[in-house]
């Protein structure tokens, strides 16, 4: 049971990661691919934060009478990664908008047909 | 002591209302009745729980922040419900009446 509780977080992280990966590979809709990428991204965030958690620890803000703090380093990395993540997602969405304007569709299959690339 | 009991009552009542609202949005047959269940219980549930927490906090910065949260939820939650119902009604979504067939999702 302890082993299960101790690794449950990581298993869910891996599950989310795989759902994200599967969405990216198997779905043809570009918006859905971006959502898949985002799910993948969030799963990585959880991996980092899970690794930084310390049993009985408090948030890493120095306070009176608190001895154990969780690891601040993953928090720093992920905090910036979230903001960078939304900026890069916006870039991907901008590309999707341009693709829609050029091809008139955001389905991968239809784009391939128009390009005769498959 | 009395304050503790009062805050417990508020917390429990808030939690119970939350569940009632949850069941409401789960069980009611059409959008408007679901929104009705959700919109009303949602605001009161939030108010009761925040009140319960506020009683625990006493006069402190935490109580002030709770009051702020309280105020925002008090204004935005009904506004959101209103805007939703308004938009749904203008979009032509009909309430389901007794005589109607089961609703058709869009």
């Amino acid at each position, binding site marked *: 049971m302890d082993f299960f509780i101790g690794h449950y977080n990581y298993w869910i992280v891996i599950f989310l990661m795989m759902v994200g990966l599967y969405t990216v590979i198997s779905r043809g809709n570009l918006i859905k691919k971006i959502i898949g990428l985002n799910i993948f991204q969030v799963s990585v965030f959880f991996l980092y934060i899970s690794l930084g958690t310390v049993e009985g620890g408090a948030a890493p803000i120095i306070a009176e009478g608190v001895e154990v703090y969780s690891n601040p380093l993953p928090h720093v990395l992920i905090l910036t990664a979230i903001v960078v993540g939304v900026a890069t997602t916006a870039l991907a969405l901008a590309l999707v908008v341009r693709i829609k304007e050029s091809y008139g569709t955001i389905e991968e299959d239809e784009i391939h047909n128009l390009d005769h690339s498959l | 002591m009395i304050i503790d009991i009062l805050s417990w009552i508020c917390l429990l009542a808030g939690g119970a209302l939350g569940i009632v609202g949850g069941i409401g949005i789960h069980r009611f047959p059409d959008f408007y009745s679901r929104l009705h269940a959700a919109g009303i219980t949602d605001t009161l549930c939030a108010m009761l729980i925040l009140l319960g927490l506020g009683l625990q906090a006493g006069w402190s910065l935490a109580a002030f922040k709770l009051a702020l949260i309280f105020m925002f939820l008090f204004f935005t939650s009904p506004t959101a419900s209103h*805007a939703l119902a308004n938009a749904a009604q203008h*979009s032509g979504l009909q309430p389901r009446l007794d005589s109607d067939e089961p609703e058709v999702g869009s």
Partner: protein
Amino acid sequence: MFIAALLAILVTMGLALARALAGPTTYDRIAAVNIFGTKTVLLIAVLAFFSGRGDLLDIALVYALINFISVVAALKLVTRGDFHSSDSDESEAN
């Protein structure tokens, strides 16, 4: 008592999630997201007291403020895109 409130909020979140998954109309989903947002605010607020860290209330406050925006944005998209007010109304408006 905090635990009872936390559990109640979790149950409500589950029910709202079920409604968001089931739909069937777009408005149902928006309403479910709105309720989910309110419950997240409450969950974080109760957790702040449960763990004795008043700082966490700031996060609840952000959610209380910002959850409103996504609802407004979703409504905006729906009223001008998905249903009656799509193209005809726009040309009239201009």
